[in-house]
């Protein structure tokens, strides 16, 4: 599969897991936002805190 197809499949899986059922137009808008936001999420997951770093907010 191409990277684009992989992305699409990943998105569809996440939407399904979240239980969202959206009209086509919104589905496509959400995909565009999700894809745009993906680098932020990848940065989040790549930034591994030290074991002692607790959430305190």
């Amino acid at each position, binding site marked *: 599969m191409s990277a684009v197809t992989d992305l699409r499949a990943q998105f569809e899986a996440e939407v399904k897991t*979240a239980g969202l059922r959206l009209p086509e137009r919104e589905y496509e808008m959400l995909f565009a936002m999700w894809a745009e936001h993906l680098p932020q999420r990848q940065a989040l997951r790549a930034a591994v805190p030290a074991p002692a770093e607790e959430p305190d907010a």
Partner: protein
Amino acid sequence: MSGEAICDLDLRGVADALHAGKVSSVEATEAYLGRIERHDGVLRAYITVMADRALEAARRADAELRQGRRRGPLHGVPIALKDLIAVAGVRMTAGSRVLADHVPESDADATERLHAAGAVVLGKLAMHEFAFGRPVTDGPFPTGRNPWDVTREPAGSSSGSAVAVAAGLCAGALGSDTGGSIRGPAARCGIVGLKPTYGLVSRRGVVALSWSLDHVGPMTRGVHDAAILLQAIAGRDPGDPSTRDARIADYTAQLEAGVRGMKLGLLRRFYVDFPGLHADVKTAALAAFDELGRQGAAIADADAPTLDLAGAIWVTFLSEVYEFHRETLRDRPHDYGEGLRTRAWMGALVTASDFLRAQRLRARLRREVLSLLDRFDALVFPGQAVPAQRFEDLSLTSVIVPSSRYTNVWNLLGLPAVVVPCGFTREGLPVSIQIVGRPFDDATVLRIARAYERATDWHTRRPDASNWKVE
């Protein structure tokens, strides 16, 4: 004193005129109501004008003054509230069809305090839907127009608050700020906007957007005005547990004390060197920092490496927004505007572990920034990335616009942050600097802002009402 002269004053000017007996509260209220009547058809700052209630409150304020009772500097001063801050018995929409018929039974804590201080509430101000929607030009709750150029947006979400203050449709206003919703509109409309320390001002009676990021604060023409409003609304409230540790100060006492001897950290790498920073904003902001240096502040570059992850940590916001709207979104999706609805779904795709990772990194960022604030009295940087945009140029698909880095970091950290005008672009659009301080040291950020403000005349400039026309 003519009605136009009253509306040209800042809040402190109106307060002084009332105190000196140059104008009554009824006269001031009528002046603003008249100006709203003349201009709000174009500017669209108000969702609800409370003319009868405002005049009734003004008459009471005048009666008290005649009896020698003055509650304080806000006594009889006409102000207005973003339409997510409750006034008992007055429709509160949050700019959404979802709440189109909602009438709260109780005042918000901030409203109670303003009433106790003698302020006159003129009405409820326009906002982006639930403080997270997109600017809209049609429908029941259109976004206000920027008084400096009515073809441009005023930013949001406290759009009406900024427009009303900048255009002289009220003496001061309250907005709310979850990712920049006070500071963004204030910067783009050329006024002062203060996001107080998280927990200093109660959120009770304020429609939530994101509990850990929401702040209520003043939007005014001058720094002194902001201090007066903050003084009135700050304080502990059993109805909002986040205020349990609130530390109140006298916010006007040290306003004129200047910056000599202060150490200011300039967040150059993250903000000044950001490629998306408009050249005119950069030039004006750097000149403003030079002015603070001339006044005796020592300015040095400062940095916190985890700032680079602030956008990633912002999933906190997406999760909290979705959690708040989850059931209503599923039951009544079409009562929401498309701009909000689609972006709110993003929160459904954030996993629990992503959310917790964000909280751990948020704590790290907080440690880094508080460490900076051990060395510096405050941090400074440009108040915005870009000036006001034309409505047609706005991105309607981005979940987070890159320019939000100038504001949303400080919601994540809950630190006091103020924007103050520092000039205009070559196109005549206002630009600002931003000052961030230590927790509950709101007095210092206001003091620094005032030191800059009093050396300049940006805050005295007014948009030209003869340009408030649309084709």
